[in-house]
């Protein structure tokens, strides 16, 4: 039996869903952390060009990239407990779904981040490093003070893109019973025997759209802040100079 479309129910649904954004963001933040750390290690391995390690990194990235997120999710959900139990004697029965979700999306994100970081570092002219060495900086100092800040700016747009992809792929986490906004939405539909499904999906769509727009804005601001030599400062400076000439 289907109830008629109820426009106002969309807002009711949004209010019911809102608290579950906490889980969505928790999953996102932990996956970004894990994925970025792992991705940095992979990128570093590839930059150093040690044949064996690079080969391993390439293989790993290939495997993860070629795996549909939902397949990887179930591989981790069913496979990891087996490995942990047989290999290390760790019982995962009481582990929350968040654990498996974060592991999955960290793995996914790390493969993307490895390429994002590697290409950003590779984009920096090697003269930057040489100039730093020539005035007596160590390799490490040159990397941290000169190369990394510039690479971060280059990586930022790609990072933002990957993050938005991750946000959307993250909606799959409900399939293993993780209750984030998506999971809650599915539960609400189920509890009402499929009634108001359309309203709830519209509510979910609105939520994901808003988060994406919000993230895009944040990253645009960050790009301007981190790129001190780009348009932003020039405008600010010319404004300052104009004011100076007025006096």
């Amino acid at each position, binding site marked *: 039996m289907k109830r008629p479309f109820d426009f106002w129910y969309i807002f009711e649904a949004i209010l019911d869903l809102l608290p579950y954004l906490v889980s969505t963001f928790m999953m996102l933040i932990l996956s970004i952390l894990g994925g970025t750390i792992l991705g940095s290690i992979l990128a570093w391995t590839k930059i150093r060009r040690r044949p064996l390690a690079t080969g391993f990194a390439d293989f790993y990235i290939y495997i993860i990239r070629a795996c549909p997120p939902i397949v990887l999710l179930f591989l981790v959900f069913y496979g990891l407990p087996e490995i942990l139990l047989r290999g290390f004697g760790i019982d995962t029965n009481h582990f929350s779904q968040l654990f498996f979700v974060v592991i999955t999306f960290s793995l996914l994100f790390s493969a993307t981040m490895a390429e994002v970081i590697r290409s950003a570092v590779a984009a920096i002219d090697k*003269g*930057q490093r*040489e*100039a730093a060495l*020539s*005035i*007596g*900086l160590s390799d490490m100092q040159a990397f941290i003070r000169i190369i990394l800040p510039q690479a971060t700016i280059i990586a930022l747009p790609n990072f933002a893109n990957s993050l938005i992809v991750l946000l959307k792929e993250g909606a799959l986490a409900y399939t293993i019973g993780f209750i984030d906004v998506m999971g809650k939405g599915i539960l609400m539909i189920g509890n009402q025997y499929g009634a108001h499904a359309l309203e709830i999906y519209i509510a979910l769509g609105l939520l994901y759209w808003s988060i994406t727009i919000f993230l895009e804005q944040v990253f645009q601001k960050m790009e301007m802040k981190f790129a*001190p*030599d780009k348009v932003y400062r020039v405008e600010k400076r010319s404004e300052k100079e104009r004011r100076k000439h007025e006096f």
Partner: protein
Amino acid sequence: MLEIKNIHKRFGNTEVLKGVDLNVEKGDVVVILGPSGSGKTTLLRSINFLERADQGSMVFGDKKYSFQKASKKEILEVRKKTAFVFQNYNLFQNKTALENVTEGLVIGRNIPKKKAYEKAVEILTKVGLSDRYDFYPSQLSGGQQQRVGIARAIAVEPEVILFDEPTSALDPELIGEVLQVMKQLAKEGTTMIVVTHEITFAQEVASKVIFMDEGRIIECGTADQVIKHPKEERTKQFLRRITNDMEYAI
């Protein structure tokens, strides 16, 4: 003060340096001339270990370094005694003109920030950029960028400054302002090794001119000897070509 012996370097199958000796005294301005591919830039980069030469050694001050075997610590030591001015300036893009100069002082030499700042201001004023302290490299002209590059090099008070074609990426109009700064340095007794195609500069300030071709030193002497009265046919040929170019330049 700096004595290079029998330096060899090869890239793959090409031997770029085939045993070069070079002697630099304190206060010398050594100008290295030569066609492209003659190994002059590689020689300069090897002195600073930006390139690792395959053979040869160098006595710098009272210490001897092997090009092939120098340890990380020794390399850092040499780099602290030298400074490098690059063809493409290579200013730190994420730092202002002032920060470009203070970086080597604060991080490389552990000089307190305030002192480094004062010194950087003084040096930038000296190269004529007193109104450009907080401009980023992308906001400066080529000539201004290269003057910041020179300021960054002199700030660390190196015993030798290595110039790798410092004016060859510049518009003809901007070359003058960079050469002027270099002439000023020469006058003050700064020891410099300069790879350049600026013959007039060589004639005016060089205490020693070296002509290189195919990884070897062909001729070496005062500017007068090498440029005005070259002995070797190869040198004459090269000089004829670049001075002809100058006549035809529009």
